[in-house]
């Protein structure tokens, strides 16, 4: 079941509205990390069901963070969704090759962000009947 979401995003504007959107609209338990490093520290204890990862961050970018996350035993299988500006189909494919499930584009609509995340989860759990 999808309940705990870890969001890695360095821009305060996005952090605020996303937290509101996910908690109030989706009812999720949300933890926000402002950098890849913070996320690596927090992930094992928080044990998220799904990770939302911004691509463009100033210190460690999304793809690099993902790489490091996958080395943590608790996060090897955790579904990860990238968030970035509107992407084209071939870029989505590239992100998926890196290990992300899907890509959610920015800017997002706060009213439907939770729906989008839930959609990703549904498609993911269809493929993994153990979920």
């Amino acid at each position: 079941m999808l309940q705990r979401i870890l969001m890695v995003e360095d821009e305060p504007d996005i952090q605020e509205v996303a937290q509101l959107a996910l908690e109030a609209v989706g009812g999720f338990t949300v933890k926000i990390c402002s950098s890849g490093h913070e996320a690596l520290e927090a992930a094992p204890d928080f044990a998220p069901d799904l990770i939302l990862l911004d691509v463009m961050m100033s210190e460690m970018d999304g793809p690099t963070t993902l790489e490091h996350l996958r080395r943590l035993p608790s996060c090897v299988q955790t579904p990860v969704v990238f968030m970035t500006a509107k992407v084209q189909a071939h870029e989505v494919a590239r992100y998926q090759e890196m290990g992300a499930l899907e890509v959610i584009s920015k800017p997002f609509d706060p009213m439907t962000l939770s729906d989008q995340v839930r959609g990703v989860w549904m498609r993911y759990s269809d493929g993994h009947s153990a979920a």
Partner: protein
Amino acid sequence: MTPSSNGALQAQLQTLRTTYATRLPEKIARLREICRAALEAEADENEIALTHEARDKAHRLSHNLAGSGATYGYAALGSIARRLELALLECGGEDRIDARQATRLRALFEELENELARIASGANGKTETVPAPRVLAAVPPQDAVAGNDSWRRALQDNSHDDHDNRLIFLASTDAELGKEVAQQIGYFGYDVRSFALDETSASIEQLCRALIRDEPAALLISESLCREEAPSQNKDFHHGVLDLARRVREMRRGSTSPTLPIVFMSYCTDMKTRLEAVRAGGTAYFTHPIEIAEVIDKLDALTAQEIPEPYRVLIVDDEPELSDFFSLTLGEAGLSTRVVNDPLQIITALNDYRPDLILMDVYMPTCSGLELATALRQQEDYVGIPIVFLSAETDVAKQMAAIGTGGDDFLTKPIRPDHLVASVRARAQRSRAVRSFMVRDSLTGLLNHTTTKEQIEIEISRAVRTKTPLSLVMLDIDHFKSVNDTHGHLAGDRVIKNLSRLLQQRLRKTDIIGRYGGEEFAVLLPDTGAETAQRVIDEIRRGFSHIHHGAVVGEFYVTFSAGIASFPECSNAALLSGAADKALYEAKRAGRDRVVISSTMCVEA
């Protein structure tokens, strides 16, 4: 979500939005400060210092604005910021930028500040969902200068020439042929610059440099591309030409301007060569002998910078939050939307809005989407309009049943925005194309006879309702039969196409142009009185009389006569058409090549 918790959420969102708005001026000021050197430089200063670190900072800031703008309800600001982001990326990795890049940055900053001012003045109450049209198409409100229709017309006028890029490059190995092609294309209002390709790589380099410097709307390459039949045996040069096309595409990559269309003109008809041209990035391929009208059509299509009128989507869903989300998503993708939350209001919306497609929720309290679709399809007028259903229903059998009742597609919620946009856009596009076939004349693309007559009725009704003048012009080409007899039917067709194109170029988007008969045209000018109409049509008459309708045997000139009648002098469609016809007859009788206003007293018998 319960209504009360929804209310609380909306309040919180509103608070966030207000906070975001108060931070905007500071962000933009910081951006400005970083880019100050570029913004304050002289217009022709060419080496402006802007370190790539500074550019990175600016890029990050504009990326932030682009990525959050629409989320907070400031979609327009967000999209300007996105363009700024791309423009900064385009500046490359050096520590300076050139005059052209600086000019673009300046323009974008101006847009940004204007938008900020608009937001500050409180103009932005709701999230924008419709992309701002470039062309002013709506009739201004009644309180504009009343009675002075030529002033109003001038206000609405948009000269196509100002916006379209008419510069074309023509690169050719055959000088004579190149000159002829350039001349013919020039008659149609294009500015053609010729380049000789003389089999050296130097000539290709020169062309490339000019391409970067002058940014033409299209590149025509006239070359014999056949491997076997090439006049020159220089295979390297042949590869060079194809390579040129590839390089041109590389150059444009990453820039914000669209890819340069490349049109090949060649002697080769074989598939292999055509494929090579496609792989090299060719947008079109014509074989000699070239039919100039075809090339012009292609160039017109490629160079038109007017944004085609956005597809219109009617959203029928009882949940305002969801319908607003769809509105936002489709709006961001460039489509226009209107929302109907009460399905029973659908007919009014259909008549007023005339959508290209209906996006319909299946489960609504008053009636199901399926019932609604069935009822709609029973009316002849709405048999053809595409209906796309939206539902959380995942049962395939039920989805199929929905399609059986008259839906065209079934999308399941939750839906990814890009999936929604793609499905909707494809269907709206096709719907519009199909409808076009039914109402347009195939040779000219103007409205056909039946549709033109319908439009006269529609425009009169609108003129009555809005109490504005309306002029109808009946236009007939002079001595057309002898054009056909002397120069052939193909030449006659070309004359008709040229007049059509001229009318479309010179009239407004809101004017209606129809091909009424073989050589007869009808033009409806809303919000225009007889005198103004006469002035406009007379100018076009003069222009048309100067066009060389270049034929194989000598050039020739053609003129037309026209008659004008207006509402409110003529109070209904029948009177209007009758009076305009009579005026046309008078023009012919008085010697042709003139525009006459009806003197008929249009009184109902």
